[in-house]
């Protein structure tokens, strides 16, 4: 019999940083060009299976997607209250959205959510010039890494369009929650390989023992 855990995950970040796209990609494996702006918040959930040797666990991720518009900030506590994990998103090509990350970190730390694990997620890698996209990277990985380390947070880069790093991100969230250690090197470094994200690579069951 698998152990079943439920955990609350909240997504925060500046408007247009790709929070909703990230979830739509994760939940239904599609990329939509025009997702609607989120108003208030939206909810979705997905179950993650974790297998570690003999041990098997199921983690239900209850994911809250929040509005990025600054006006809705006052409502945010309603949605992030009691979350065990917060994914703070920013657009890798938009410096201002990175600047917003610190705001959310402070907000979460101040508002008693001490047990909330932080994940900093740079989105839209497909748009960056280094992956063949049209835009220039606005935030360097070393900078974010240093920042994340200071906070004891984890940093990943994702692309909802080319489905890069997203499953890994949520598995990481689930594993951290369930107290699983990943048998290979932590995916922080892993996710930073600066190479063309390979669609088939992600879809294949990796050798990692999730």
């Amino acid at each position: 019999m698998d152990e079943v855990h439920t955990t609350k995950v909240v997504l925060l970040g500046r408007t247009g940083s790709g929070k909703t796209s990230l979830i739509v990609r994760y939940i239904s494996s599609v990329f939509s060009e025009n997702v609607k702006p989120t108003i208030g918040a939206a909810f979705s959930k997905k179950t993650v299976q974790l297998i570690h040797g003999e041990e098997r666990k199921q983690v239900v991720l209850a994911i809250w997607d929040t509005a990025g518009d600054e006006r809705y900030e006052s409502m945010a506590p309603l949605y992030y209250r009691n979350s065990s994990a917060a994914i703070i998103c920013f657009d890798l090509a938009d410096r201002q959205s990175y600047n917003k990350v610190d705001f959310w970190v402070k907000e979460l730390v101040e508002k008693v959510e001490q047990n909330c694990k932080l994940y900093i997620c740079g989105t839209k890698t497909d748009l960056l010039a280094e992956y063949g996209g049209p835009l220039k990277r606005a935030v360097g990985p070393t900078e974010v890494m240093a920042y994340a380390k200071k906070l004891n947070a984890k940093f990943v880069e994702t692309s909802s369009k080319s489905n890069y790093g997203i499953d890994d991100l949520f598995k990481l969230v689930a594993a951290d929650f369930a107290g699983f250690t990943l048998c290979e090197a932590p995916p922080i470094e892993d996710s930073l390989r600066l190479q063309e994200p390979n669609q088939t690579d992600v879809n294949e069951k990796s050798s990692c023992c999730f």
Partner: protein
Amino acid sequence: LGVSTFLAAPLPANKYGINGLPLTPNSIKILGRFQLLKSISHPYLCQYIDLVRGKHERLFVVCEYNKINLQDCIRSGRQLSATTIAQVGYQILQALAFLNTYEIVHRSLTPFNVSLASEGNIKLSHFGLYYVTHFGSLTTFPIGYPPYLPPEAIVAGPNYAAELGPSGFKVDVWSVGIILLEMVIFVKVFCHVKYTITFSVLSKLYSLIPKSNIKLGIICTNLIFLCKLCLSRLLPKQLLDDELFEELRIKQPVRSEILLEDCYFTLVFTCLKLFEEVYYIWSLAAGDLESLLKKSKLIKSEPPICSMPNLTTNDGYAFGQPKDRLNLHDNSVQILPLEKVLEKIESINGIELYPLIEYSHSTEETKETAKLPPIIKERDVCYQTHRIILFQRLLEGYPHTLKTLFSEAATDIPPLLRGKVWSALLGIRGNVQEIYDLIDKETPNSTDRQIEVDIPRCHQYDGLLSSPTGHIKFKRILKAWVVSHTDLVYWQGLDSLCAPFLHLHFNNEALAFASLCAFISKYLHNFFLKDNSHVIKEYLAVFSQMIAYHDPELMDHLDNISFIPDLFAIPWFLTVYTHVFPLLKIFHLWDALLLGNSSFPLFIGLGLLFQLRSELLSSGFNECILLFSDLPG
């Protein structure tokens, strides 16, 4: 009415704009630009009515059409009197001068595109092609006919040349000159033009004129003088002041009534006054533009197997197909077969066609139809004809008829007139255009960025709202709202709220803006305050109380699983459901909403909960919230 067709330039697959979003298809860009043409009305211009997108970037243009055109007239060899020629010239120039006020250049002016309407009046057609295709840059075929184009347009090459910019107004004046000359001398001036020829046009003219012109007498010298003037390229407006037109200037243009070839259904046209209405009824009666054009061989389809490319690159470019002749432009027009529809309308009871406003009058049949669901009613030709006539008359009597308007709108609102009816229901009065014009919609401010990221994500499945023209209008209206309401601020969601109004009043930003303002102040009072938390809290508290009052059992259950309205109902109320439903649903929902008072959105929310009551009662928190989430779960 006639329909013609052309293809927009296809975009290569997998190409993205600089902002990383996919490129807007050219047909959508054209659709957005086309809307302006619908609003252009002039006695010497054919009225554009609709543009429909077909498959594979094919576009269908519906517009007013007269069978006889100047080309036939010239070909027939019948001598035209000098006054007629002058009159034609004058009218063309008037039409052009009018178009120029909209910054529109015809560019494909030929005798074929000058149709002859009743009483010797002309009507220009195809005048919008150059405009809608953004100076030809959105199509693959060149616009314009070399024999009628001035040298500089020919030198610029067949397609849009960015470095030279779009053609100016004077291009058309040259064409007018050539057309007039042809009418005078009955010879095609440039039969075989090669692009490379650098021709000395005026000398050619001088050589042509004396030979063919002996019979024409003195007035004609004036005409020739005019032709020369045309070719010497003054603006249409300047030419209108020419003394030749002295006596014509007194005659004011008269708006001609609908004129349909061989049509004695006069009865109908006393009721349906606009082309738009006739076309709308026609398309309701399952009129299909594409099959019509296929039948008349204007669109030829090939089996797909014959058009397989030999080579396709990763970028989506295909090679090895013979160049498709269908991509070339064919300006021929197919007449819409209206007879069947007109017969159908003829069969309608006179009471329905001439509704009495002050008394209740409907026939049994109409009353029966009125009970059907809106989707079905909106497809019913006879019923819609009746409703359109009725509402048109009520709108003409607005605001005196407001009470009747309310009671009739309670039955339903005809989609064709929805925008106007809504504005009336919202009580819009006064000079909205002037108010709108006085608002500064350009100065950048801090809200711009939020508006800019929201618009490309707002109801983009809709062609109008996703077109670049639509985005520009969208931004203007939202900015106007922000600027004119200093105590209120832009909240994400205001874009969705604006969408239905913009869609309905695409050509009338001022009215869309006025409607939006009236709507917000009626249904969303203080929702857009900078700090709206107390307003929303109060609203949600009322909502909770209402659930508790109307359905204690449900409330008890929701309370137990701590499923509070704050978690799901904010987007409902803040956007009055525009964020939750697609446009078509919003239209029907708001048809009802606009009749109600400011607390009506709460009742709609209650209705939604009722509808899902059994699911809600049997589910826990997660399942409940998923029911209302627009994300996949």
